[in-house]
């Protein structure tokens, strides 16, 4: 279906990534946000608070991130599309509820405008050091989808994709921005509502009595939803549950449920991955990057090519699920991979795992606070090419 024009601010704008992310959410149909202030993500909820009264929906500032991250889930079961917005310390507090969203299959977008960590770290400066937290931060076996925009325009465009993915798969979707993408101001083009494709919630058409909230088939592992007040008298719990949603704490039910939940993503990783490639075929060295670092990497790749090196660039627009299959393919021909990221080596571990020794993997680490110097990445490309 097409976007509701009420939420779409069609036109050409000169805005930062935080504001663009908010507009993306509104265009995607997000009508409820419960927030808590934290730098550098606050502008997203500030804009939402200012826009939503005239769009039709609600913003509420909660007492902490624990509250915010479960209030949105109450709103989902009341029928709304929602997002949760925070940064490092706030995201750490939200981790229990990320697990609840996964276990109860509550569609929700989780925005992390990454800043330097650990702990309070560097509140006003960028990092990409929460990539593994997004994947592993809540307890138990779970899967997420994580997108990584590299510009304000992508904050808008990919936010719509994030909402569509969470409704399609009913897993929490992370939107992994960083302080630079959040605060850089660029041209953002917002199309008209009829040009924006929206995935509607997968509502059940079954009558009360027939409907089981967690019933799925072998062909379709994503159950149909309802909302409170529609007469289905559902039960939703974070406990291990059966198809009726009733707690059933047996080994067999755990096996069936947790495998189905994880396999929604694991079995469909190939169709979910989203990479943008530039000159990868025939390259000796392939730079693998994501988010703001991809823009620095572009400069380094251009410089290396000017020196006559055969260098490709693969940018992950979706980091989780990781594009392992594609990396494996490339590793059959390329000599080396160079992986710059603003952390001490996180996604590079996935590259190493996929490559499995068949090519050299060179990390380009950075403890955070700013972006890489292109020269640092160039140096590693040259080193890898030798």
């Amino acid at each position, binding site marked *: 279906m097409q976007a509701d024009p009420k939420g779409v601010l069609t036109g050409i704008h000169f805005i930062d990534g935080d504001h663009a992310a908010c507009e993306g959410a509104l265009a995607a149909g997000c009508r*409820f946000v*419960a927030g808590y202030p934290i730098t550098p993500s606050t502008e997203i909820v500030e804009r939402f608070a200012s826009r939503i*009264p*005239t769009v*039709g*929906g*609600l913003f*509420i500032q*909660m*007492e*902490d991130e*624990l*509250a*915010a991250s*479960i*209030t*949105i*889930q*109450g*709103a*989902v*079961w*009341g*029928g*709304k599309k*929602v997002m949760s917005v925070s940064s490092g310390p706030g995201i750490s507090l939200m981790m*229990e*509820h990320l697990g*609840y969203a996964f276990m109860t299959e509550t569609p929700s977008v989780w925005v992390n405008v990454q800043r330097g960590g650990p702990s309070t770290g560097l509140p006003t400066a960028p990092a990409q050091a929460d990539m593994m937290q997004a994947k592993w931060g809540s307890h138990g076996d779970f899967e997420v989808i994580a997108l990584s925009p590299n510009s304000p325009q992508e904050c808008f465009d990919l936010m719509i994709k994030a909402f569509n993915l969470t409704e399609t798969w009913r897993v929490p979707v992370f939107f992994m921005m960083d302080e630079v993408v959040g605060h850089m101001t660029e041209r953002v083009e917002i199309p008209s509502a009829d040009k924006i494709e929206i995935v509607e919630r997968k509502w059940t058409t079954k009558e009360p009595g027939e409907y089981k909230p967690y019933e799925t088939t072998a062909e379709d592992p994503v159950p149909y939803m309802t*909302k*409170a*007040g*529609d*007469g*289905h*008298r*559902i*039960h*939703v*719990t*974070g*406990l291990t549950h059966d198809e009726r949603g*009733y*707690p059933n704490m047996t080994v067999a039910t755990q096996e069936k449920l947790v495998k189905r939940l994880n396999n929604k993503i694991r079995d469909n990783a190939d169709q979910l991955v989203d990479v943008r490639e530039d000159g990868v075929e025939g390259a000796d060295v392939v730079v693998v990057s994501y988010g703001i670092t991809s823009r620095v990497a572009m400069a380094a790749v251009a410089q290396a090519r000017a020196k006559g090196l055969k260098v490709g660039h693969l940018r992950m627009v979706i980091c989780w699920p990781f594009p392992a299959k594609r990396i494996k393919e490339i590793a059959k021909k390329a000599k080396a991979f160079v992986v710059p990221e603003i952390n001490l080596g996180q996604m590079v571990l996935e590259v190493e795992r996929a490559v499995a020794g068949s090519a050299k993997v060179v990390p380009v680490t950075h403890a955070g606070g700013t972006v890489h110097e292109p020269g640092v990445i160039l140096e590693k490309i040259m080193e890898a090419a030798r």
Partner: protein
Amino acid sequence: MSEGMGKELEQDLERELGLGNQVLPYLRQDRLPHIWCPGCGIGTTMNCFTRALQDSGLDMDDIAIVSGIGCTGRTAGYLNLDSFHTTHGRAIPFATGLKLANPRLKVVVYSGDGDLSAIGGNHFLHAARRNMDLMVVCVNNFTYGMTGGQVAPTTPTGPTQTTMPYGNFESSFNLPALANACGAVYVARWTIYHVRQLAKAMKEGLQKKGFVFIEAMSPCPTLYSRRNRLGDGVDQVKYYKERSIVKNGADTKDVGLTYQGDIVVGKFVDRERSTWMDSMNEHYTKVLGDKFTPYGVTDGQD
């Protein structure tokens, strides 16, 4: 005709005549038996709640129940309503989102003293401050039952708990005073001896708009009373009977509980105050004029 079918017809007939079990239609019968120990009072409070549902005149499809974690937290799963068993301490913020997303719903939070006043304490304060339109039932058994009898913020000074093995030396919360101070519009306390009064308070709570707080004192024979040589469930109900003093309208600062001391029960607060959503609608209508369409006034989906 099978034996089961006959029983069903019998139940229907009894219901028509106002006889027999009035509670069963409100329960998810396929989830019984429940997990609660013999002598536990949570089931009694749930019984009172079903009575309140019946007397409230509300459509059961318009009521949702939200619980946190713990013995009382299991209540949501036994009631034949839209029900949500959330995370420890976070029933109130979940309920806040549910209520605001679908304002047509009457949303009830039903949880224990540890869940609501320890790990969930902050949310309790703020929901009362905002006058969020929720009814909060707190079953207070002075202990963490599900985890084996640890000290709670409600445990009076004195008794032994597994994490206060030499007796509790901390001071406890006076929950009605806390709710009142933060702005709740309806505050009452009853014990499970006072089944009619508790059911009536719950009915009033269902019909009241704004933040309603009802404390229901309930024995935990397994982990609180027996451990402190106070007997079992029946002995605790006798204690409630003997030491309860009904004082409707009592100043909530005078209703704090002590170890096996007097229990002031009654309806302490019943007042009017604009809810969060009414305040928002009123304010935005004033400052934004025609640009703003009041939220949740029509079908709850705008």
